[in-house]
Protein backbone atom coordinates (compact mmCIF):
# COMPACT_ATOMS: atom_id res chain seq x y z
CA UNK A 1 0.00 0.00 0.00
CA UNK A 2 1.20 3.43 -0.91
CA UNK A 3 -0.50 6.80 -0.90
CA UNK A 4 0.49 9.16 -3.70
CA UNK A 5 -0.28 12.84 -3.33
CA UNK A 6 -0.13 13.61 -7.00
CA UNK A 7 0.59 17.22 -7.95
CA UNK A 8 -2.09 18.75 -5.75
CA UNK A 9 -2.94 22.44 -6.16
CA UNK A 10 -5.68 24.37 -4.42
CA UNK A 11 -7.02 27.82 -5.24
CA UNK A 12 -9.80 29.24 -3.06
CA UNK A 13 -12.20 31.64 -4.74
CA UNK A 14 -14.31 33.71 -2.33
CA UNK A 15 -17.71 35.31 -2.99
CA UNK A 16 -16.20 38.43 -4.45
CA UNK A 17 -14.28 36.28 -6.91
CA UNK A 18 -10.96 36.90 -5.21
CA UNK A 19 -8.49 34.07 -5.67
CA UNK A 20 -6.19 32.78 -2.95
CA UNK A 21 -3.66 30.19 -3.95
CA UNK A 22 -3.23 27.88 -0.97
CA UNK A 23 -1.22 24.98 -2.41
CA UNK A 24 0.92 24.74 -5.52
CA UNK A 25 1.94 21.44 -7.06
CA UNK A 26 2.38 19.34 -3.92
CA UNK A 27 3.81 15.98 -4.84
CA UNK A 28 5.03 13.25 -2.52
CA UNK A 29 4.04 9.81 -1.37
CA UNK A 30 3.55 7.99 1.90
CA UNK A 31 4.83 4.43 2.04
CA UNK A 32 3.25 1.61 4.02
CA UNK A 33 4.00 1.94 7.76
CA UNK A 34 5.64 5.31 7.23
CA UNK A 35 5.25 8.33 9.53
CA UNK A 36 5.30 11.45 7.35
CA UNK A 37 5.14 14.89 8.93
CA UNK A 38 4.24 18.04 7.02
CA UNK A 39 5.65 21.13 8.68
CA UNK A 40 5.32 24.74 7.61
CA UNK A 41 4.68 28.30 8.79
CA UNK A 42 1.15 29.43 9.61
CA UNK A 43 -1.06 29.85 6.57
CA UNK A 44 0.96 27.53 4.34
CA UNK A 45 -2.03 25.35 3.49
CA UNK A 46 -1.02 22.37 5.63
CA UNK A 47 -4.55 21.77 6.86
CA UNK A 48 -5.92 22.31 3.36
CA UNK A 49 -3.67 19.49 2.19
CA UNK A 50 -4.87 17.19 4.98
CA UNK A 51 -8.52 17.93 4.23
CA UNK A 52 -7.96 17.11 0.57
CA UNK A 53 -6.33 13.78 1.48
CA UNK A 54 -9.22 13.06 3.89
CA UNK A 55 -11.80 13.69 1.17
CA UNK A 56 -13.23 16.65 3.06
CA UNK A 57 -12.22 19.22 0.43
CA UNK A 58 -11.73 19.12 -3.33
CA UNK A 59 -8.44 20.01 -4.94
CA UNK A 60 -8.25 22.44 -7.84
CA UNK A 61 -5.94 20.09 -9.70
CA UNK A 62 -4.10 16.89 -8.95
CA UNK A 63 -5.39 13.89 -7.03
CA UNK A 64 -4.80 11.59 -4.10
CA UNK A 65 -4.26 7.96 -5.04
CA UNK A 66 -4.27 4.91 -2.75
CA UNK A 67 -2.17 2.30 -4.58
CA UNK A 68 -2.85 -1.29 -3.63
CA UNK A 69 -5.78 -0.33 -1.42
CA UNK A 70 -7.94 -2.96 0.29
CA UNK A 71 -11.33 -3.73 -1.13
CA UNK A 72 -13.10 -4.22 2.23
CA UNK A 73 -15.47 -1.67 3.75
CA UNK A 74 -12.85 -0.12 6.02
CA UNK A 75 -12.21 3.55 5.30
CA UNK A 76 -9.09 4.75 3.53
CA UNK A 77 -8.45 7.47 6.05
CA UNK A 78 -9.42 8.53 9.56
CA UNK A 79 -8.76 12.01 10.93
CA UNK A 80 -7.65 13.27 14.32
CA UNK A 81 -8.62 16.94 14.43
CA UNK A 82 -6.93 19.75 16.33
CA UNK A 83 -10.09 20.56 18.29
CA UNK A 84 -10.83 16.88 19.03
CA UNK A 85 -14.24 16.93 17.27
CA UNK A 86 -15.68 14.48 19.79
CA UNK A 87 -19.46 14.07 19.85
CA UNK A 88 -20.43 15.71 23.16
CA UNK A 89 -23.55 13.53 23.52
CA UNK A 90 -21.56 10.31 23.30
CA UNK A 91 -19.50 8.77 26.05
CA UNK A 92 -15.86 7.87 25.45
CA UNK A 93 -16.82 4.33 24.46
CA UNK A 94 -19.65 5.51 22.20
CA UNK A 95 -17.34 7.99 20.49
CA UNK A 96 -14.79 5.30 19.80
CA UNK A 97 -17.30 2.89 18.25
CA UNK A 98 -18.89 5.56 16.01
CA UNK A 99 -17.10 4.48 12.83
CA UNK A 100 -17.72 0.80 13.63
CA UNK A 101 -21.45 1.51 14.01
CA UNK A 102 -21.47 3.18 10.62
CA UNK A 103 -19.83 0.12 9.08
CA UNK A 104 -22.39 -2.24 10.63
CA UNK A 105 -19.93 -4.09 12.86
CA UNK A 106 -21.69 -6.36 15.38
CA UNK A 107 -22.21 -4.99 18.89
CA UNK A 108 -19.93 -7.42 20.73
CA UNK A 109 -17.21 -6.95 18.16
CA UNK A 110 -17.54 -3.15 18.43
CA UNK A 111 -17.04 -3.47 22.14
CA UNK A 112 -14.00 -5.74 21.80
CA UNK A 113 -12.33 -3.46 19.27
CA UNK A 114 -13.06 -0.42 21.43
CA UNK A 115 -11.60 -2.12 24.51
CA UNK A 116 -8.41 -2.83 22.60
CA UNK A 117 -7.90 0.80 21.63
CA UNK A 118 -9.02 2.12 24.99
CA UNK A 119 -6.21 0.05 26.48
CA UNK A 120 -3.76 1.18 23.79
CA UNK A 121 -4.28 4.90 24.44
CA UNK A 122 -4.64 4.48 28.20
CA UNK A 123 -8.31 5.38 28.74
CA UNK A 124 -9.31 2.51 31.01
CA UNK A 125 -11.83 3.66 33.60
CA UNK A 126 -13.01 6.58 31.44
CA UNK A 127 -15.26 4.54 29.12
CA UNK A 128 -18.51 6.01 30.39
CA UNK A 129 -17.39 9.60 30.83
CA UNK A 130 -18.65 12.36 28.55
CA UNK A 131 -16.10 14.50 26.68
CA UNK A 132 -16.83 17.58 28.82
CA UNK A 133 -15.63 15.61 31.85
CA UNK A 134 -12.18 15.03 30.30
CA UNK A 135 -9.02 17.16 30.07
CA UNK A 136 -7.68 18.18 26.68
CA UNK A 137 -5.06 15.44 26.67
CA UNK A 138 -7.64 12.77 27.48
CA UNK A 139 -9.98 14.12 24.81
CA UNK A 140 -7.27 13.79 22.21
CA UNK A 141 -6.60 10.20 23.33
CA UNK A 142 -10.28 9.46 22.67
CA UNK A 143 -9.99 11.03 19.24
CA UNK A 144 -6.89 8.94 18.44
CA UNK A 145 -8.60 5.75 19.62
CA UNK A 146 -11.70 6.62 17.58
CA UNK A 147 -9.61 7.05 14.44
CA UNK A 148 -7.51 3.90 15.01
CA UNK A 149 -10.56 1.75 15.79
CA UNK A 150 -11.56 2.07 12.13
CA UNK A 151 -8.25 0.53 11.06
CA UNK A 152 -7.77 3.06 8.23
CA UNK A 153 -5.08 2.62 5.58
CA UNK A 154 -3.77 6.05 6.43
CA UNK A 155 -4.17 7.92 9.69
CA UNK A 156 -4.38 11.69 9.34
CA UNK A 157 -3.54 14.02 12.21
CA UNK A 158 -4.16 17.77 11.88
CA UNK A 159 -2.07 19.58 14.51
CA UNK A 160 -3.53 17.21 17.09
CA UNK A 161 -1.69 18.66 20.07
CA UNK A 162 -1.89 22.38 19.25
CA UNK A 163 -4.89 22.94 21.50
CA UNK A 164 -3.06 21.46 24.49
CA UNK A 165 -0.81 23.24 26.99
CA UNK A 166 2.94 22.88 26.45
CA UNK A 167 3.51 20.22 29.13
CA UNK A 168 0.58 18.03 28.08
CA UNK A 169 1.69 18.46 24.51
CA UNK A 170 5.16 17.08 25.22
CA UNK A 171 3.71 14.11 27.09
CA UNK A 172 1.27 13.41 24.27
CA UNK A 173 4.15 13.41 21.77
CA UNK A 174 5.81 10.63 23.78
CA UNK A 175 2.45 8.85 23.97
CA UNK A 176 1.89 9.06 20.23
CA UNK A 177 5.42 7.81 19.59
CA UNK A 178 4.68 4.80 21.81
CA UNK A 179 1.28 4.15 20.19
CA UNK A 180 2.82 4.35 16.74
CA UNK A 181 5.53 1.81 17.69
CA UNK A 182 2.70 -0.57 18.60
CA UNK A 183 0.63 -0.05 15.47
CA UNK A 184 3.04 1.15 12.74
CA UNK A 185 0.09 2.75 11.00
CA UNK A 186 0.86 4.79 7.87
CA UNK A 187 0.51 8.33 9.12
CA UNK A 188 0.32 11.83 7.71
CA UNK A 189 0.87 14.33 10.49
CA UNK A 190 0.45 18.09 10.14
CA UNK A 191 2.20 20.50 12.51
CA UNK A 192 3.88 23.88 12.71
CA UNK A 193 6.17 22.62 15.46
CA UNK A 194 9.58 21.62 14.11
CA UNK A 195 10.74 19.73 17.23
CA UNK A 196 7.57 17.70 17.09
CA UNK A 197 8.11 16.97 13.39
CA UNK A 198 11.67 15.71 13.92
CA UNK A 199 10.76 13.78 17.06
CA UNK A 200 7.89 11.90 15.42
CA UNK A 201 8.57 11.60 11.70
CA UNK A 202 10.35 9.19 9.40
CA UNK A 203 10.29 11.93 6.81
CA UNK A 204 9.51 15.61 7.16
CA UNK A 205 7.96 17.54 4.27
CA UNK A 206 8.79 21.23 4.67
CA UNK A 207 6.27 23.60 3.11
CA UNK A 208 6.77 27.26 2.21
CA UNK A 209 4.30 29.96 3.12
CA UNK A 210 1.35 30.75 0.88
CA UNK A 211 1.11 29.44 -1.73
CA UNK A 212 2.38 26.29 -0.07
CA UNK A 213 5.06 24.56 -2.09
CA UNK A 214 7.47 21.84 -1.00
CA UNK A 215 10.76 23.42 0.08
CA UNK A 216 12.40 20.16 0.98
CA UNK A 217 11.75 16.61 2.09
CA UNK A 218 14.09 15.48 4.86
CA UNK A 219 14.52 11.86 5.94
CA UNK A 220 14.97 11.70 9.70
CA UNK A 221 17.60 9.04 10.40
CA UNK A 222 17.02 8.74 14.13
CA UNK A 223 16.71 5.37 15.86
CA UNK A 224 13.35 4.06 17.02
CA UNK A 225 11.72 3.66 19.47
CA UNK A 226 12.10 7.35 20.22
CA UNK A 227 11.77 8.61 23.74
CA UNK A 228 12.52 11.57 25.95
CA UNK A 229 16.32 11.02 25.72
CA UNK A 230 16.23 11.84 22.00
CA UNK A 231 15.55 15.52 22.44
CA UNK A 232 19.01 16.05 23.96
CA UNK A 233 20.91 14.36 21.17
CA UNK A 234 23.07 16.33 18.78
CA UNK A 235 21.66 14.76 15.63
CA UNK A 236 18.11 15.61 16.66
CA UNK A 237 19.07 19.21 17.31
CA UNK A 238 20.83 19.43 13.95
CA UNK A 239 17.68 18.30 12.16
CA UNK A 240 15.63 20.87 14.07
CA UNK A 241 18.11 23.60 13.26
CA UNK A 242 18.27 22.66 9.58
CA UNK A 243 14.49 22.84 9.21
CA UNK A 244 14.26 26.07 11.20
CA UNK A 245 16.81 27.75 8.96
CA UNK A 246 14.63 26.79 5.99
CA UNK A 247 11.42 28.11 7.49
CA UNK A 248 12.71 31.09 9.52
CA UNK A 249 12.35 33.77 6.88
CA UNK A 250 9.09 32.30 5.66
CA UNK A 251 7.65 32.36 9.14
CA UNK A 252 8.74 35.97 9.67
CA UNK A 253 7.10 37.05 6.44
CA UNK A 254 3.95 35.16 7.40
CA UNK A 255 3.90 36.92 10.78
CA UNK A 256 4.17 40.38 9.25
CA UNK A 257 1.61 39.69 6.57
CA UNK A 258 -1.88 41.04 7.01
CA UNK A 259 -4.47 38.42 7.56
Amino acid at each position, binding site marked *: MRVVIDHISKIYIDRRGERTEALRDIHFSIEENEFVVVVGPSGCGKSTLLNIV*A*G*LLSSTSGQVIFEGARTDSK*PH*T*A*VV*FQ*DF*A*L*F*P*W*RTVLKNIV*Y*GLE*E*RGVKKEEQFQIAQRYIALVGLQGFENK*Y*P*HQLSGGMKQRVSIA*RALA*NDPLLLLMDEPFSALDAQTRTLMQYELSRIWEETHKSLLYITHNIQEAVFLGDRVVVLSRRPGTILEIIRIELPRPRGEHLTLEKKYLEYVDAIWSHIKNQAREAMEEEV
Partner: protein
Amino acid sequence: MIKEVHQPLVEKAIVQDKTYFLQVKEHPWLSLFSFMVILLLWEGVSRFEWVPPLFLPAPSAILLEGWTMLKTGVIFKHIFASLSRILWGFLIACSLGVMVGILIGFFSIPEAIGNPIIAATFPIPKIAILPLLILWLGIGEASKVAVIALGVFFPMVINVYTGVKNVDPLLIKAALSLGSNRARIIKKVILPSILPMIFAGMKLGIGIALLLVVAAEMVAADAGIGFMILTAADLMQTKKLMVGLIILSFLGIFFNWLFQKLERFFIPWKQ
Protein backbone atom coordinates in the same frame (compact mmCIF):
# COMPACT_ATOMS: atom_id res chain seq x y z
CA MET B 1 14.00 57.78 30.55
CA ILE B 2 10.67 57.63 32.29
CA LYS B 3 10.78 58.94 35.86
CA GLU B 4 7.98 58.44 38.31
CA VAL B 5 7.21 60.84 41.09
CA HIS B 6 6.73 58.86 44.28
CA GLN B 7 3.94 59.82 46.62
CA PRO B 8 4.56 59.62 50.36
CA LEU B 9 4.11 56.07 51.66
CA VAL B 10 1.23 54.78 53.79
CA GLU B 11 1.91 52.09 56.31
CA LYS B 12 -0.41 49.37 54.99
CA ALA B 13 -2.71 49.09 51.99
CA ILE B 14 -4.78 45.94 52.02
CA VAL B 15 -6.08 44.66 48.70
CA GLN B 16 -9.88 44.47 48.52
CA ASP B 17 -11.93 42.20 46.28
CA LYS B 18 -13.59 44.61 43.87
CA THR B 19 -16.02 42.03 42.56
CA TYR B 20 -17.77 41.22 45.86
CA PHE B 21 -21.10 42.66 44.68
CA LEU B 22 -21.13 40.27 41.72
CA GLN B 23 -21.27 37.24 43.97
CA VAL B 24 -24.64 35.58 43.77
CA LYS B 25 -26.62 35.95 46.99
CA GLU B 26 -29.76 33.96 47.50
CA HIS B 27 -32.71 35.06 49.66
CA PRO B 28 -35.00 32.02 49.72
CA TRP B 29 -36.87 33.15 52.83
CA LEU B 30 -37.46 36.63 51.48
CA SER B 31 -39.18 35.19 48.39
CA LEU B 32 -41.52 33.09 50.51
CA PHE B 33 -42.08 35.83 53.06
CA SER B 34 -43.00 38.53 50.55
CA PHE B 35 -45.37 36.11 48.81
CA MET B 36 -47.14 35.42 52.10
CA VAL B 37 -47.34 39.12 52.94
CA ILE B 38 -49.00 39.90 49.62
CA LEU B 39 -51.51 37.08 50.15
CA LEU B 40 -52.29 38.34 53.67
CA LEU B 41 -52.75 41.94 52.47
CA TRP B 42 -55.08 40.69 49.76
CA GLU B 43 -57.02 38.62 52.30
CA GLY B 44 -57.38 41.67 54.54
CA VAL B 45 -58.45 43.98 51.73
CA SER B 46 -61.25 41.55 50.80
CA ARG B 47 -62.26 40.58 54.35
CA PHE B 48 -62.73 44.17 55.47
CA GLU B 49 -64.43 44.88 52.17
CA TRP B 50 -62.21 47.78 51.23
CA VAL B 51 -62.79 46.40 47.78
CA PRO B 52 -66.13 44.65 47.16
CA PRO B 53 -65.57 40.83 47.11
CA LEU B 54 -67.50 40.74 43.87
CA PHE B 55 -64.48 42.43 42.23
CA LEU B 56 -61.74 40.94 44.38
CA PRO B 57 -62.68 37.86 46.37
CA ALA B 58 -60.38 36.84 49.23
CA PRO B 59 -57.73 34.17 48.55
CA SER B 60 -59.38 31.93 51.16
CA ALA B 61 -62.74 32.24 49.37
CA ILE B 62 -61.11 31.41 46.02
CA LEU B 63 -59.43 28.40 47.57
CA LEU B 64 -62.71 27.22 49.02
CA GLU B 65 -64.42 27.65 45.67
CA GLY B 66 -61.64 25.65 44.01
CA TRP B 67 -62.05 22.91 46.60
CA THR B 68 -65.79 22.56 45.98
CA MET B 69 -65.19 22.51 42.23
CA LEU B 70 -62.61 19.80 42.79
CA LYS B 71 -64.97 17.78 44.99
CA THR B 72 -67.86 17.97 42.56
CA GLY B 73 -65.48 17.23 39.70
CA VAL B 74 -66.74 19.98 37.35
CA ILE B 75 -63.25 21.39 37.23
CA PHE B 76 -61.76 18.25 35.66
CA LYS B 77 -64.02 18.46 32.64
CA HIS B 78 -62.58 21.89 31.87
CA ILE B 79 -58.97 20.98 32.62
CA PHE B 80 -59.09 17.83 30.51
CA ALA B 81 -60.75 19.63 27.63
CA SER B 82 -58.02 22.28 27.59
CA LEU B 83 -55.18 19.83 28.19
CA SER B 84 -56.18 17.51 25.36
CA ARG B 85 -56.34 20.48 22.96
CA ILE B 86 -52.92 21.65 24.11
CA LEU B 87 -51.48 18.15 23.90
CA TRP B 88 -52.65 17.47 20.35
CA GLY B 89 -51.74 20.90 19.06
CA PHE B 90 -48.39 20.73 20.77
CA LEU B 91 -47.55 17.25 19.47
CA ILE B 92 -48.47 18.13 15.89
CA ALA B 93 -46.53 21.40 16.05
CA CYS B 94 -43.41 19.87 17.58
CA SER B 95 -43.13 16.99 15.16
CA LEU B 96 -43.89 19.16 12.13
CA GLY B 97 -41.64 21.94 13.41
CA VAL B 98 -38.67 19.65 13.91
CA MET B 99 -39.10 18.01 10.51
CA VAL B 100 -39.58 21.24 8.58
CA GLY B 101 -36.81 22.97 10.55
CA ILE B 102 -34.29 20.26 9.72
CA LEU B 103 -35.42 20.19 6.10
CA ILE B 104 -35.02 23.92 5.52
CA GLY B 105 -31.91 24.11 7.69
CA PHE B 106 -30.02 21.29 6.00
CA PHE B 107 -31.13 21.34 2.35
CA SER B 108 -30.84 24.40 0.15
CA ILE B 109 -33.90 23.84 -2.08
CA PRO B 110 -36.40 23.47 0.81
CA GLU B 111 -34.70 26.48 2.40
CA ALA B 112 -35.26 28.61 -0.71
CA ILE B 113 -38.92 27.54 -0.86
CA GLY B 114 -39.73 27.50 2.86
CA ASN B 115 -38.00 30.61 4.16
CA PRO B 116 -40.16 33.27 2.44
CA ILE B 117 -43.38 31.39 3.31
CA ILE B 118 -42.40 31.30 6.98
CA ALA B 119 -41.28 34.91 6.93
CA ALA B 120 -44.65 35.96 5.48
CA THR B 121 -46.91 33.91 7.78
CA PHE B 122 -44.96 34.17 11.04
CA PRO B 123 -45.94 37.79 11.85
CA ILE B 124 -49.71 37.11 11.62
CA PRO B 125 -51.14 36.83 15.15
CA LYS B 126 -52.40 33.25 15.20
CA ILE B 127 -55.65 34.17 16.96
CA ALA B 128 -56.52 36.23 13.88
CA ILE B 129 -56.40 33.04 11.82
CA LEU B 130 -58.90 31.30 14.13
CA PRO B 131 -62.03 32.52 12.26
CA LEU B 132 -60.58 31.19 9.03
CA LEU B 133 -59.75 27.88 10.72
CA ILE B 134 -63.30 27.65 12.09
CA LEU B 135 -64.58 28.30 8.57
CA TRP B 136 -62.43 25.49 7.23
CA LEU B 137 -62.51 22.95 10.03
CA GLY B 138 -65.79 23.72 11.77
CA ILE B 139 -66.46 24.89 15.28
CA GLY B 140 -65.35 21.65 16.98
CA GLU B 141 -62.03 20.44 18.30
CA ALA B 142 -60.13 20.50 15.00
CA SER B 143 -60.03 24.29 14.65
CA LYS B 144 -58.84 24.74 18.25
CA VAL B 145 -56.12 22.13 17.92
CA ALA B 146 -55.11 23.69 14.61
CA VAL B 147 -54.71 27.19 16.01
CA ILE B 148 -52.56 25.88 18.86
CA ALA B 149 -50.50 23.80 16.44
CA LEU B 150 -49.97 26.86 14.26
CA GLY B 151 -48.90 29.00 17.17
CA VAL B 152 -46.40 26.46 18.52
CA PHE B 153 -45.12 25.50 15.08
CA PHE B 154 -43.41 28.82 14.41
CA PRO B 155 -41.14 29.13 17.44
CA MET B 156 -40.31 25.45 17.00
CA VAL B 157 -39.43 25.65 13.32
CA ILE B 158 -37.41 28.84 13.77
CA ASN B 159 -35.50 27.38 16.72
CA VAL B 160 -34.75 24.14 14.92
CA TYR B 161 -33.68 25.99 11.78
CA THR B 162 -31.31 28.19 13.79
CA GLY B 163 -30.04 25.10 15.60
CA VAL B 164 -29.27 23.27 12.38
CA LYS B 165 -27.48 26.32 11.00
CA ASN B 166 -25.29 26.43 14.12
CA VAL B 167 -24.28 22.77 14.24
CA ASP B 168 -20.51 22.59 14.60
CA PRO B 169 -19.26 21.92 11.03
CA LEU B 170 -16.27 20.11 12.52
CA LEU B 171 -18.59 17.44 13.97
CA ILE B 172 -20.16 16.94 10.55
CA LYS B 173 -16.68 16.59 9.06
CA ALA B 174 -15.72 14.10 11.76
CA ALA B 175 -18.86 12.05 11.10
CA LEU B 176 -18.20 12.11 7.34
CA SER B 177 -14.64 10.95 7.84
CA LEU B 178 -15.96 8.14 10.06
CA GLY B 179 -18.20 6.91 7.27
CA SER B 180 -21.59 8.60 7.83
CA ASN B 181 -23.77 9.51 4.87
CA ARG B 182 -26.14 12.50 4.83
CA ALA B 183 -29.12 10.65 6.28
CA ARG B 184 -26.98 9.25 9.09
CA ILE B 185 -25.57 12.70 9.78
CA ILE B 186 -29.07 14.07 10.30
CA LYS B 187 -29.84 11.29 12.76
CA LYS B 188 -26.52 11.05 14.58
CA VAL B 189 -25.11 14.59 14.49
CA ILE B 190 -27.83 17.13 13.65
CA LEU B 191 -30.58 15.75 15.92
CA PRO B 192 -28.53 15.48 19.11
CA SER B 193 -26.90 18.86 18.36
CA ILE B 194 -30.25 20.64 18.13
CA LEU B 195 -31.89 18.98 21.16
CA PRO B 196 -31.26 22.02 23.38
CA MET B 197 -32.87 24.24 20.73
CA ILE B 198 -35.86 21.89 20.51
CA PHE B 199 -36.38 22.20 24.25
CA ALA B 200 -36.04 25.98 24.06
CA GLY B 201 -38.71 25.91 21.34
CA MET B 202 -40.98 23.75 23.51
CA LYS B 203 -40.67 26.15 26.44
CA LEU B 204 -41.54 29.09 24.21
CA GLY B 205 -44.30 27.06 22.62
CA ILE B 206 -46.10 26.02 25.79
CA GLY B 207 -46.68 29.66 26.76
CA ILE B 208 -48.15 30.32 23.35
CA ALA B 209 -50.27 27.16 23.59
CA LEU B 210 -51.79 28.26 26.91
CA LEU B 211 -52.58 31.68 25.46
CA LEU B 212 -54.18 30.26 22.35
CA VAL B 213 -56.21 27.54 24.05
CA VAL B 214 -57.84 30.13 26.32
CA ALA B 215 -58.48 32.49 23.43
CA ALA B 216 -59.93 29.74 21.23
CA GLU B 217 -62.17 28.50 24.02
CA MET B 218 -63.47 32.01 24.60
CA VAL B 219 -64.47 32.28 20.95
CA ALA B 220 -66.40 29.03 20.75
CA ALA B 221 -66.49 26.09 23.14
CA ASP B 222 -68.67 24.27 25.64
CA ALA B 223 -65.81 23.20 27.92
CA GLY B 224 -62.28 24.24 28.77
CA ILE B 225 -60.62 26.71 31.12
CA GLY B 226 -61.11 29.59 28.72
CA PHE B 227 -64.81 28.77 28.44
CA MET B 228 -65.06 28.45 32.22
CA ILE B 229 -63.44 31.84 32.81
CA LEU B 230 -65.66 33.59 30.25
CA THR B 231 -68.93 32.11 31.53
CA ALA B 232 -67.91 32.85 35.13
CA ALA B 233 -67.32 36.46 34.18
CA ASP B 234 -70.69 36.65 32.41
CA LEU B 235 -72.39 35.40 35.56
CA MET B 236 -70.28 37.61 37.87
CA GLN B 237 -68.84 34.49 39.53
CA THR B 238 -65.53 36.17 40.29
CA LYS B 239 -64.31 33.38 42.56
CA LYS B 240 -64.77 30.81 39.82
CA LEU B 241 -63.01 33.11 37.38
CA MET B 242 -60.07 33.41 39.77
CA VAL B 243 -59.89 29.62 40.12
CA GLY B 244 -59.48 29.47 36.34
CA LEU B 245 -56.58 31.91 36.47
CA ILE B 246 -54.89 29.93 39.22
CA ILE B 247 -55.23 26.73 37.21
CA LEU B 248 -53.55 28.47 34.26
CA SER B 249 -50.71 29.60 36.51
CA PHE B 250 -50.27 26.05 37.82
CA LEU B 251 -50.33 24.60 34.30
CA GLY B 252 -47.61 27.02 33.19
CA ILE B 253 -45.43 26.18 36.19
CA PHE B 254 -46.07 22.46 35.72
CA PHE B 255 -45.06 22.46 32.06
CA ASN B 256 -41.91 24.43 32.76
CA TRP B 257 -40.96 21.96 35.46
CA LEU B 258 -41.76 19.03 33.16
CA PHE B 259 -39.63 20.36 30.31
CA GLN B 260 -36.75 21.04 32.65
CA LYS B 261 -36.89 17.41 33.87
CA LEU B 262 -37.16 16.11 30.31
CA GLU B 263 -34.24 18.26 29.24
CA ARG B 264 -32.05 16.90 32.05
CA PHE B 265 -33.05 13.39 31.05
CA PHE B 266 -32.50 13.75 27.32
CA ILE B 267 -29.39 15.93 27.44
CA PRO B 268 -27.25 14.30 30.12
CA TRP B 269 -24.04 15.62 28.53
CA LYS B 270 -25.02 19.19 29.45
CA GLN B 271 -24.48 18.63 33.21
